[in-house]
């Protein structure tokens, strides 16, 4: 369960903000992509997890480095963007109570594509699995899921330095015998301009809250999940090229997992994560 969350944080929390060009210090934000355009991001993620079962605290941690490849298939007249994404590489070092594990480019995950359609403002309209994934060892045993990410929704109106906007998302993730809803409410603020990695970037501070609810039946046991926590960070975006250059962020989730059936258990879990995303191509 904790690794499932790890994956969710590793991939789900990859927030890519893309903005269109500006005039007179104001920016009209929209995704501006071209058919056949390719982007690559290197993502580094550190996750520290602690859960308490039967009065004993168990801690685990992981460091994951991945390269995500994104290819635009089509940009519609309405501005909707269809793209596929997949991992080019993934290296995970995990420390768990069961021992340490290293995953280097697991065959069942690399290059496995997902197709997504979103509006010009970044609202996800559809997500379709193209290639099925096979999770390796510990990830599979702990109920891990396929990698997934979403773009954030952008402001609909023109914005300038100091302006804020709020975006709310709710993703329903199907689980074996149930579902988990991950909802995020995030406020973005343009904090200024800064040169980053050779680009003239907008520095966009974000802060918000993630909530997690879900339930289902797995192996004859009912499970319920409830949690929440802050999600904060800074995104660096070049309005001229309309690309995200970097993101640095943290999130801290306090979650309760409840099991009923042949065994009753209430498990508190804390997950602290740090993420850094850098445009590499």
């Amino acid at each position, binding site marked *: 369960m904790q690794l499932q969350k790890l994956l969710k944080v590793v991939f789900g929390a990859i927030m890519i903000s893309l903005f269109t060009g500006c005039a007179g210090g104001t920016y009209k934000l929209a995704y501006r992509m071209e058919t056949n355009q390719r982007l690559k991001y290197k993502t580094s993620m550190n996750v520290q997890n602690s859960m308490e079962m039967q009065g004993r*605290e168990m801690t685990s941690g992981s460091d994951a480095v991945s390269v995500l490849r994104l290819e635009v298939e089509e940009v519609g007249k309405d501005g909707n963007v269809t793209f596929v994404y997949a991992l080019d590489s993934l290296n995970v070092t995990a420390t768990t109570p069961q021992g340490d594990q290293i995953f280097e480019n697991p065959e069942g995950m690399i290059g496995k594509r997902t197709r997504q359609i979103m509006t010009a403002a970044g609202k996800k309209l559809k997500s379709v699995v193209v290639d099925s994934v096979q999770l390796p060892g510990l990830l599979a045993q702990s109920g891990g899921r396929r990698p997934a990410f979403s773009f954030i929704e952008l402001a609909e109106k023109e914005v300038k330095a100091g302006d804020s906007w709020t975006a709310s998302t709710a993703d329903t993730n199907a689980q074996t015998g149930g579902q988990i809803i991950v909802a995020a409410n995030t406020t973005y603020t343009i904090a200024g301009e800064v040169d980053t990695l050779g680009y003239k970037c907008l520095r966009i501070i974000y802060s918000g809250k993630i909530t997690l609810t879900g339930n289902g039946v797995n192996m004859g046991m009912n499970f319920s999940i409830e949690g929440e926590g802050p999600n904060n960070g800074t995104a660096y975006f070049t309005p001229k090229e309309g690309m995200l250059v970097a993101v640095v962020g943290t999130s801290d989730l*306090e979650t309760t997992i409840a099991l*009923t059936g042949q*065994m*009753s258990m*209430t498990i508190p879990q804390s997950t602290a994560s740090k993420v850094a995303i850098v445009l590499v191509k």
Partner: protein
Amino acid sequence: MKIMQKTVTLFLGIAALFIADGSFYNTPPREALEAIRAGDIRQHINFLASDSLKGRNTPSPEFDRAAEYIADEFKRYGLKPVNGSYFNPFNVSQVQLGKENALIVTTAGREVSYSIKSDFMPFDMTASKDVTASLVFAGYGITAPEYGYDDYAGLEVKGKIVLVMRHEPGERDPASPFNGERETDHSQVSTKVQNAIDRGAAGLLVITDPANHRSLAPRGFPWPSLYEGIPDDALPLTLSLAEKEKIPVAQVGETVMQQIFGSVDTLRQWQQQIDLTRKPRSMALLQVQIRLQTTTNPILQATRNVVGLIEGADPKLKTEIVVVGAHYDHVGYIKQHQEGEDYIYNGADDNASGTSAVLAIAKAFGAARQKPKRSVLLMAFAGEEKGLFGSRAYVEQPLFPLENTVAMLNLDMVGRNAPDSVSVGGNTRSPDLAKINEEENRAVGLQLDYSIEQFHNRSDQYNFARKQIPFLFYFTGLHADYHRLGDHADKINENKIAKIATLAFRVAWRAANTEQRFRLVEPQ
């Protein structure tokens, strides 16, 4: 005739020497060894892991049937009841949060009443008590003589409310004397609670150590009644201890931390200083008054360990006890299941195998014409799967004084994997017993493996080790059927169990026939 007389005299002389130097007692009697039979073990497993016992969940009617079976076998083998019974009863409970819970902090005349869940959260081991007292900061709340560290050194906490941080010094430091980055038992909240109780504290507040952790939310125990999406029946079963042995315990969050210390940074600096110097920074915070009230509503259920005694033959040593035990519970069955599908967690390896080994060892002791010098207590523990409850209940309220309990042998999951090997835990912590085990294994011929330190706190030997009792733990490893429906009797190797039972019996026999007190040491 003369020659015959000489021969007899010589034989008697050798026998006398044999007895005088203790060798007689060091050699397990043949009739005892012959009593350990794979066929008996197969019979026990077939019953204990049968569908009729529905996975031996603690507590359940089927679990009670397993207890009766074990008690009957003990009786049949000639073991004696203890205090007139083969049962060692204790209570478990589902503990609901009561309605009256309060945390009021007064500093410099400023009184603040805090809210449950957002500011403070009682732990599940909390008492139903209302206490008001001044506050004492006791660092990490750790007393660890093995590391030369004591947060309570020179600190008077009797009748006070103690505030401690989670975890331990140098939690993220590979060079930390507290086992590097791998946490020790001292980092567990339950250990800190017990330490505070032992020192007479009236209550305990726990805070997240801010130098190593960003989230300072008051996690405590997530009581279902405080969450919309968490059902009440998710409350776990807990070992029910007498209220007098408990104190109110709650975790407090950032708001409370700020009032007590002025800022989180102050506490963070104190923690960094402790981590850097490895020296406690405990102190009475006399200007801080706390009122802490927590209430719980336990729903009690009775369950029981099974016990049988082989009384020692030596008038002096018979008061000393060697415990040989295994848990006999498993995790029950799936209530929501389709007709015709397997739904019972039979727990053949976990732990009908260990229970059957204990029955075989009981039979061997019962069959021995000469009883050992020390007494031997055979035990089948309840509630291991719920959190080592049976062994914890026993060591908290033992039938025989723990200071006279010289050794504990635990058998948990001993019937699967390679036919001639067994993993032995406790070899570094209990070097004397480990040496005996190696010596006795020469006659048994099992391949011994010692790489199971990570399982130290996952079976019943742990509670005996906590009470400074030397132990060995026999285990044949995890497998694909561990805690799954496929842990069936037909996958068990009864011949292997018989070998392991023979080894454990030989070690128990040796341990029960010496005046030697065995050492328990911290592993390096």
